[in-house]
């Protein structure tokens, strides 16, 4: 029985907006509409979907950047050896939470403070949590720079972000994120703004670090090919709901939900001799079905740890 690091149950995040200038009516945008998943220790989950499907909102709710509307988020507490909710954490628990959860952002140009040099950027988490003595902290910074491939470290410590390339900046982000040895890192499309030839090296770096430091990732991306490379399991999101979730290879070989099939079949294949057959669906119909599903129909287990949402999907084929 795998030990879970994170359990999410029926997470919901709604945004209230007013409908117009003179209208009193407020409309609700259900960005995340009741999703559930688990991530065991040492495994990574990919969250895949198109823009606006709610994956970034989920990430932000998990990191307590934005407050969720309802639902449960439970983390494994190493002290009590129990799954505990992250609601109403006291100060000490919050500190421990903040030490163990980190996030890597998509934009290498905006995720580092342009006025700080690299050394201070990477030192910051250690300073906030008061870990070790000053010289120990500085040593740790040098070590992590070597680990992420920014060598020799002395060349990078006094530099400012605008002097580094996109790939180097993401490495700094990774260094800063992992210097605390967190258990869980949310990655929000960290390679989508990088050059193609650099992506693999960054992804390999993250995979190696995951193995060495026993970190689990929630990897958010719209690119299924990248999710395949990085994750054990993949969850497919559409309009705030998870429509299918399974182990990576299982999902790709045996997709059940029509949306998953459409998604997989839309991806261009780097082989000119491959005849790609697109599995087209009626999106308006799918939209209808999903938005009418206010009771969270739930997922059915079709074996092999493969779950599919149980909407009536005949109308969209």
């Amino acid at each position: 029985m795998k030990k879970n690091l994170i359990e999410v149950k029926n997470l919901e995040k709604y945004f209230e907006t007013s409908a117009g200038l003179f209208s009193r009516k407020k409309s609700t945008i259900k960005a995340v509409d009741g999703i559930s998943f688990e991530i065991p220790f040492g495994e990574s989950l990919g969250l895949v979907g198109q823009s606006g499907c709610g994956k970034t909102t989920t990430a932000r709710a998990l990191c307590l950047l934005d407050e969720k509307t309802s639902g449960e988020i439970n983390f494994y507490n190493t002290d009590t050896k129990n799954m505990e909710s992250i609601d109403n954490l006291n100060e000490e628990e919050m500190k421990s939470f903040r030490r163990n959860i980190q996030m890597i952002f998509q934009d290498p140009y905006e995720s580092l403070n342009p006025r700080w040099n690299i050394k201070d950027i990477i030192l910051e988490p250690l300073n906030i949590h008061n870990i070790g003595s000053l010289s120990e902290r500085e040593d740790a910074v040098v070590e992590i720079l070597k680990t992420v491939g920014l060598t020799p470290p002395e060349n990078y410590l006094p530099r400012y972000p605008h002097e580094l390339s996109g790939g180097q900046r993401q490495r700094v982000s990774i260094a800063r994120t992992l210097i605390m040895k967190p258990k869980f890192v949310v990655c929000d499309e960290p390679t989508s703004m990088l050059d193609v030839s650099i992506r693999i090296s960054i992804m390999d770096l993250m995979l190696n670090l995951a193995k060495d430091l026993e970190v689990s990732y929630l990897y958010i991306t719209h690119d299924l090919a990248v999710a395949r490379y990085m994750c054990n399991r993949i969850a497919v999101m559409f309009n705030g709901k998870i429509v299918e979730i399974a182990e990576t290879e299982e999902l790709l070989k045996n997709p059940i939900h029509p949306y998953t099939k459409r998604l997989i079949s839309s991806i261009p294949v780097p082989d000119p001799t491959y005849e790609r057959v697109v599995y087209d669906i009626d999106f308006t119909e799918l939209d209808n079905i999903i938005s009418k599903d206010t009771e969270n129909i739930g997922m059915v287990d079709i074996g092999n740890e493969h779950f599919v949402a149980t909407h009536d999907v005949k109308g969209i084929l």
Partner: protein
Amino acid sequence: MQENILEVNNLNMHYETLGGEVAAVKDITFHVKKGESFGLVGESGCGKTSVAMSLVQLQADNAKISSGSIKLDGQELIGLSENELRSVRWDGISIVFQGAMNAWNPVIKIGEQIREAIREHYPNNSKLQNIEKIKELFEMVGLDESIIDRFPHELSGGMKQRAVIALALSCNPKLVIADEPTTALDVVIQDQILNEIKKVQDLLGLSLIYISHDIAVIAEMTERMAVMYAGRIVESGPTKNIFSDPKHAYTRALLESTPSVVGEKVKLNSLDGEPPSLIDAEIGCSFSPRCSKPTENCKSGKSEMGLIEVANGHFADKCCVECG
């Protein structure tokens, strides 16, 4: 033997900056046959957008073409006056810019902006004729004709991009350049738009230059292609040949570092280092710092650069061909 719609020979272009001259396009030679799709693949800073801009002579103020020739259907474009160029642009050759969906004027309706382009080339058309033409174009790209009266902010990203393609087709160009037209779009929409492009191309017999950093899209959309690195073409030829038998180390590296959803899961090879900055002067092969098997000649510049033919129509940099 088909005639070529575009012939580019030994094109050299540089930017004049504070730091000195930066060569962006170095000795580029390629041709596009009538009715075919030609792909140009490379990463940021490799010069592909500079090439695109040079083809329509819309380069930045501080960009200068130092030598070379660009022949569109036999007519030389370099050296034409601005007036002569304006009649060629949009009419002979049109371009779908990178990020074009954000290039719509937000306070003018879509239909009006397209009519502006048509009026420029067909001043004698009546308003009704132009609107009919736009309706035709919209049908081709899969847009509802009510879009004509909408403002850009009312459209989704995919719709805006389709409208951009309609705009590019509005003056019956012979050649369309598409510079990363689907980069910012979701993969499902990208798929739909790529289909539209293919459909339109077949319908109108268009020639197409497709520029992208995504080698999978190039594989699906083009019949012939060229790979660019640091301002130069390092390999070119029929798409199928290049994928099955890549000769240049960079091409091979690109192919090996692209993850795919079909087939077995393979361990990909990463490419060390970064694409070079064009400001630094080049000694020898600019790819050698990242090559997995560089020879001494590659690094010191003793090996000869320049494309040689390795098979029918398939060209690659000489030095790479020799070291294999």
